[in-house]
């Protein structure tokens, strides 16, 4: 039973990983790509790790998978925020059809 639910979580993670990487290829802009690919981290890889935890149970490997999930949930938004800030400060333009740019308005 545990293995069936773990398999379901792993397949869900693969789904999100695949579409995140497809967004990395297809979307027009750095910020759009960042937005698509951060989903691939939190939902995709964290579900794969949770599936691994369900496969292993409360052994050493399973607890390490939970630790890895906590670490990823803490660090992935920080790195995405830092990358977006660095890209904006290095002067990467937005897409032409973008509606507004609040960060530039705030830092006039």
């Amino acid at each position, binding site marked *: 039973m545990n293995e069936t639910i773990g398999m379901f979580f792993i397949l869900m993670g693969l789904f999100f*990983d*695949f579409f995140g990487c497809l967004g990395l290829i297809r979307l027009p802009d750095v910020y759009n790509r960042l937005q698509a690919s951060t989903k691939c981290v939190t939902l995709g890889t964290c579900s794969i790790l949770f599936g691994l935890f369900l496969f292993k149970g409360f052994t050493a490997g399973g607890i*390490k998978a939970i630790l890895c999930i906590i670490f990823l949930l803490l660090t992935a938004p920080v790195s995405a925020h830092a*990358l977006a800030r660095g*890209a904006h400060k290095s002067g990467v333009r937005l897409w032409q059809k973008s509606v507004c740019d609040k960060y530039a308005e705030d830092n006039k």
Partner: protein
Amino acid sequence: MRQMRWIIGLLAILIILLVIIFYPFVSLLEWQSELLKHTFFVLLFCGVFCVLRILKGPTPADRAVAIDILGILILGFCAVLGIPTGRDWYIDIGIAWALQSFISTLALAKYLEGRNFDE
């Protein structure tokens, strides 16, 4: 449009080559089910997408984003490989890789900011 066709053809050739190279090695492991075996190849497919973005990306910021995601995908590889082999140290490699990837991403972001380095 013509460039797009070249890229699609290159992608197909790369994926076929990767499957031909990796299939015997992956089949050596004792996978619990066929479905789990194919997850490995889906992750390889995603990795090829990331490498394409690293090669193609117009700005350095694109490349930094793609490198970050490639590190996270390798963590997924480690997690998937930990199930059939039954060895726990694959996830150790994953934790160390996530830490290194986080620090390198922060350094790349600081490098992208450029002029006002100490703020």
